[in-house]
């Protein structure tokens, strides 16, 4: 990306003042090296977001930003409903509430090493993953509506997990304001047999070692130590979320003209928050958030069952569960006064700092865990929200490594079988229904997650707590 139009405010903050149709400035967080590597399309998309009605303060891009559709992936924008602010289906994306959940296992790395291959096979057998996979749970239409209202709370009531899990999930596992009536029959139908499935693409379940702790106090508050084993799940709202995204994107594109919204890019399809479509989308999108939370809760249940097969008596407890494709109503200070804003995070993680009232009691002094998924050959990270990120980015941080290469190019560069063999030599076992899928997700197709996380840390968006390294990856 060309940095000519930017003013460097600090080592990791770059700002472009509003020009042409922009209503607010654009801000990118990252080192010069990371930003220069970004596609020029990230700049164009950031500028387009800054043109949307009712946007407040600035359009932001996180250090892992890359070319998305409408919003850059790694984009954050907040809108004021009382000044014509919009909600954007494109600004949330297709995989509504895609996110990461990490669990402690109470096991040490040496406990897993001796049974690693067997554990990999058991997990691959028990966790439905990949194209065409089906969950074991079938929901009738009444169950679907209950699930869409209740999220992970619904799943726990159905026996998938324990009440303590809910304390460690954003919104305590249940997004309020969900409207199952706003979700089409097509979307519900698409989810009919997809509850408790991982999906494909960059979604995974990974057994990880806590390779390094950077902040002992915060790690202790999260209950993790070096040498321990944690397990992370990355997936979202599956077919239901994809269908809601698809349907509202079209509806908002067609209706934008009626609301006098001049879309700089059709993918930015949006509607006034105070409009029939806007309110209907919010109800459907919140239902999809609950679907994602329920899905990760059911997968957690399947994971616990699998672990019992290999480690009888093992107890898996949640570190936290974050969603990184959402629009949520939050209070943020703007020009000295608190405002109720609709914060879009597209490939960005909420990162509330210490003391935030929405955090559970056990984490209020520490801040919100920020779970960053890396690649199957490098690392993932646990960070913690900072007070400073409130003023920098509406309490938001990065969400992953971010791709640096198209799937097309990755397929030219790597053979899936070779990737699996190379990782096995390094002690990382990969199980996947598709070698081609593995090649497309090869570690080299992603940016250096450590550079991204370091930039987020230096920019005070969130603070590094621990580095996790893969032992077993189940790829969809």
């Amino acid at each position, binding site marked *: 990306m060309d940095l000519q139009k930017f003013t460097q405010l600090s080592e990791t903050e770059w700002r472009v003042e509003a020009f042409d149709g922009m209503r607010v400035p654009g801000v990118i967080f990252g080192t010069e090296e990371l930003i220069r590597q970004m596609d020029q399309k990230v700049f164009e998309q950031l500028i387009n977001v800054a043109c949307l009605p009712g946007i407040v303060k600035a359009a932001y891009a996180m250090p892992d930003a890359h070319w998305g559709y409408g919003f850059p992936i790694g984009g954050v924008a907040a809108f004021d409903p009382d000044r014509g602010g919009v909600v954007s289906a494109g600004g949330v994306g*297709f995989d509504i509430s895609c996110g990461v959940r990490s669990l402690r296992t109470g096991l040490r790395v040496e406990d897993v090493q001796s049974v690693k291959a067997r554990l990999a096979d058991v997990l691959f057998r028990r966790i439905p993953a990949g194209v*065409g996979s089906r969950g074991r749970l079938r929901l009738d239409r009444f169950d679907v509506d209950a699930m869409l209202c209740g999220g992970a709370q619904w799943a726990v009531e159905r026996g998938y997990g324990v009440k303590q899990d809910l304390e460690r999930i954003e919104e305590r596992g249940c997004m309020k304001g969900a409207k199952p009536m706003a979700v089409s029959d097509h979307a519900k139908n698409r989810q009919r047999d997809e509850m408790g499935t991982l999906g494909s693409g960059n979604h995974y379940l990974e057994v990880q070692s806590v390779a390094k702790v950077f902040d002992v106090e915060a790690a202790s508050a999260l209950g993790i130590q070096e040498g321990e084993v944690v397990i992370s799940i990355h997936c979202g709202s599956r077919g239901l979320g994809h269908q809601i*995204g698809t349907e509202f994107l*079209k509806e908002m594109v067609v209706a934008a003209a009626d609301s006098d919204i001049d879309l700089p*890019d059709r993918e930015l399809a949006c509607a006034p928050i105070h409009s029939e479509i806007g309110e209907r989308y919010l109800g459907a999108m919140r239902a999809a958030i609950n679907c994602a939370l329920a899905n990760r809760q059911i997968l957690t249940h399947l994971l616990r069952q699998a672990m019992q097969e290999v480690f009888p008596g093992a107890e898996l407890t949640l570190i936290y569960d974050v969603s990184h494709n959402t629009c949520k109503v939050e209070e943020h200070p703007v020009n000295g006064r608190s405002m109720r804003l609709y914060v879009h995070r597209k490939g960005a993680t909420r990162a509330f700092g210490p003391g935030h009232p929405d955090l559970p009691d056990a984490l209020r002094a520490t801040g919100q865990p920020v779970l960053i998924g890396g690649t199957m050959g490098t690392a993932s990270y646990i960070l913690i929200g900072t007070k400073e990120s409130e003023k920098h980015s509406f309490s938001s941080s990065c969400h992953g490594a971010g791709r640096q290469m198209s*799937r*097309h190019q990755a397929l030219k560069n790597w053979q899936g079988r070779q990737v699996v063999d190379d990782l096995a030599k390094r002690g990382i076992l990969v199980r996947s229904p598709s070698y081609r899928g593995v090649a497309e997700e090869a570690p080299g197709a992603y940016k250096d997650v450590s550079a991204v996380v370091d930039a987020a840390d230096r920019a005070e968006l969130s603070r590094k707590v621990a580095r996790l390294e893969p032992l077993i990856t189940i790829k969809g």
Partner: protein
Amino acid sequence: MNHWAHFPHEADVGIRGVGDSKQEAFEQAAMALTAVVTDQQRIAPLEEVTITCSAPDDELLLVDWLNALIYEMATRKMLFARFEVHLSGRDLTAKAWGEKVDVARHEPAVEPKGACYTELVVRQNPTGAWIAQCVVDV
């Protein structure tokens, strides 16, 4: 002249159909969509599915067509290898032939989540060839 291609997008994948007519470009775009998931040669056209959709313009119609296919792939757990598209104004009627996903044989790489408006183009080149393309979120 009819063919399909993928073009690069940083996070996802671009699909392009090229045809002597708009219909054929739409058919080729569907072939490109299937190729995101697997090699079409591995799919047997055993089962026929009928798809209809309509949209206010050609570009929105392309996205609708691809999203209708994605819906059928997701709910029927099918992959499609052959397509026949008929366009009448803003209405599309199509038949798609394929079979149920067989993970061992198809080795499906990734499931398409939805067709996007990014890089969305439906137009006729000065040479007469029709192009139908967009980015698909996977």
